[in-house]
């Protein structure tokens, strides 16, 4: 990363109750990075999805476990890492079913990873089961977008 880099991090118990706090944290960092409201909203949503996955899948309902959100930005990009120390999983093996199929199967889940990928410029996992599972999401700060209309 170039220019002055700013680093923030938040650690909270693994509970859906803390998703609001995580979104407020991400929102504050996003505003400081110079994002406009729509961009902040989408960043909150992507991080919410990632953290909800940790809370639901990495640990189960074990509130003693922790979710870590790390945020770093400079003039060019904002990077968010969502970290758990749970059992991990193989992201490549996750079957990305279409909405129609999920509906037919009466599923209530299966949309989170798609949402993150739609909202962020980069999404990748680094999995070390039981030690450290890190999901890195990157959003480029295309400052030009705010001066000229989007293409």
């Amino acid at each position, binding site marked *: 990363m170039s220019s002055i880099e700013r680093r923030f991090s938040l650690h909270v118990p693994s509970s*859906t*109750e803390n*998703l*609001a*706090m995580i*979104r*407020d944290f991400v929102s504050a960092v996003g505003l400081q990075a110079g994002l406009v409201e*729509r961009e902040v*909203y989408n960043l*909150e*949503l992507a991080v*919410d*999805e990632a953290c*909800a996955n940790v*809370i*639901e899948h990495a640990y189960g309902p074990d509130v003693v476990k922790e979710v870590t959100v790390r945020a770093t930005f400079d003039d060019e990009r904002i990077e968010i890492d969502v970290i758990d120390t749970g059992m991990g999983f193989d992201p490549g093996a996750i079957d990305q079913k*279409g*909405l*129609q199929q*999920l*509906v*037919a199967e*009466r*599923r*209530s*889940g299966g*949309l*989170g990873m*798609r*949402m993150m990928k*739609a*909202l962020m410029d980069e999404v990748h996992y680094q999995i070390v089961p039981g030690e450290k599972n890190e999901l890195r999401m990157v959003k480029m700060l295309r400052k030009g977008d705010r001066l000229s209309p989007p293409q």
Partner: protein
Amino acid sequence: MLLLWEKIPLNQEMASLANIFVVSRTLHDGIPVLALDGFLDAHTAPNFESAIQQEVDGGNLRIIANCDKLTYISSAGLGVFMSFIEEIRERGGDIKICSVQPKVMQVFEILGFPALFDIVTGVSDAIGKFQESNQER
């Protein structure tokens, strides 16, 4: 003076952090309208789920979700619509979604909901949709 304190309503800051989500129910032309207010995420989705479950259990299979005051939705909230719709339609009902704010609409669109759900402008349009399908039968 300090005694007055407990009566002062929560300030803006706290209201936002409290992650408020409320479902309230009214009837329009006999059709239940569930008004969603606030933040619908993995924490609050179970509230919405049980509100829909109650309608289904009571045999009310024509449901309107009024999203007028819904300021936030994550995939956990979308999952509630997704998991009920098949059963409800099989039994001759539907969930019509109305009055969606642009930022929430964007989320519906990202995941392709407009192709599977009737998303309309206002409550009266949603009622209209149900009346149309009445005549078709």
